[in-house]
């Protein structure tokens, strides 16, 4: 977690946009509302985490024997890895597939039962749900590495960014891109484009440093 607060960055953005500087408590030009800017800031931080898979959390997903679909954690954003842990404590990595491939590869998969699941799917499942197949009566568990939702920025009190401090400028520029691209009196497409490229710079740097992982 970063040691930079949302209020510090909101003040920076207000200086960039020649607004009254007050930690984002108001936008005197009336070009943007407080809630709107907080929304942009939160969306950019979560989008950054999803695009880069930078910060990963570990969780145990309860497995109901003989059930295909299982609920993912409430703070779930994106899956990085899924592992089946059998009742005897043996781990098996599950590759990702989708219903189309499974239907053509093994059309019995929805009803077949094996000693352990062989793959997982998330393309056709409801939001925040994972499907592992074939089903098994083993009382094992599903362990996942996933990207979790970030801290909610823009509360009454200063909140630290979830992304490490090196990447906070990228989130700031991304938020400015959203603000300056908004259709209205404050629209400034050249600067919005520049801000978007600075956000992309942070994403690319994060991906580059994870290359080969």
């Amino acid at each position, binding site marked *: *977690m970063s*040691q*930079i607060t949302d209020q*510090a960055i909101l003040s*920076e953005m207000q*200086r*960039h*946009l*020649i607004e009254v*500087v007050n930690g984002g408590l108001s936008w005197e030009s009336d070009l943007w509302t407080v809630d709107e800017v907080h929304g942009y800031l939160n969306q950019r931080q979560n989008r950054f985490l999803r695009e880069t*898979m*930078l*910060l*990963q959390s*570990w969780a145990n997903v309860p497995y109901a024997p003989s059930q295909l679909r299982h609920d993912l954690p409430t703070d779930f954003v994106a899956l*990085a*890895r899924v*592992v089946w*842990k059998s009742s005897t*404590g*043996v*781990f*098996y*990595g599950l590759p990702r597939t989708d219903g189309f491939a499974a239907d053509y590869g093994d059309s019995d998969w929805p009803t077949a039962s094996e000693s352990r699941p062989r793959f997982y799917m998330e393309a056709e499942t409801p939001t925040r749900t994972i499907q592992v197949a074939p089903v098994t009566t083993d009382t094992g568990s599903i362990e996942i*590495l996933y*990207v979790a939702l970030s801290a909610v920025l823009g509360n009454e009190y200063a909140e630290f960014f979830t992304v*490490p*401090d*090196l*990447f*906070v*400028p*990228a989130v700031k520029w991304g938020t400015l891109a959203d603000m300056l691209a908004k259709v209205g009196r404050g629209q*400034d497409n050249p*600067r919005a484009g520049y801000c978007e*490229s600075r956000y*992309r*710079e*942070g994403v*690319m*740097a*994060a991906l*580059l*440093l*994870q*290359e*080969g*992982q």
Partner: protein
Amino acid sequence: MAYASVTLSNLRQRLQDKWEGVPFWSEEEALTAINESLHVWNMLTAMWKVRATVLTTPNDPWVPLPSTMTYGLRVEFGGHPLGLSSIQALDLAIPRWQGQTTASGGSVPTSPRVFAKAGINLLAIWPADAVGLNSLVVDSVTETPVLQTNDDTVDVGEEDLNTLLGYALHVASFKEAGPRWQSTQGYYRAFMTAAADRNHRLRTSAYFRVAMGLDQAPMQPFRVRESLDGKHQTQAS
């Protein structure tokens, strides 16, 4: 490399020297622009690093890094370096690695040999330490120094100062928009080029090559325009 411990006061003065007589920026803006230049520099070059000790958990291959460590570069266990691998490589080469510990016996080593990263905040070691509470020495990139008072110092090479201050000026000029801000784009490109001199991986990325001004092709699309006789002509813009 001539490292210097530079004070915020000194950085402010040098930035002031780059501004015109009646600056359009406040002291606070100078401060945030300087700090942003340090953050982005650390992101691109992994400039500031730290060595820290993290304790293993019994039978658990996952080792979370403390928040002061941004991402691990090198790991030692018991004075021996661990080989760098990846989660995917471990899954493919040792399918049951996650359940193996130093007490598993057979062909499993009796001390951790390999580490892999999951994102930048989590490490996996193989095999997991069966005893636990042993030390992993981790060299990692650390948080960027944040300057707040005039006496605060930052270790940075003298040869990089001008580049960092150029970036700060570029960021501070953003609010002016128009030609004044556009004219500082050269500072930004110089900053990116200097970063790539320190981190050659940046030069392998098409995105960063454009940002450095090395690859201009995507910025010069072919346009089709209609000539006076009504026929279409294609030319580079």
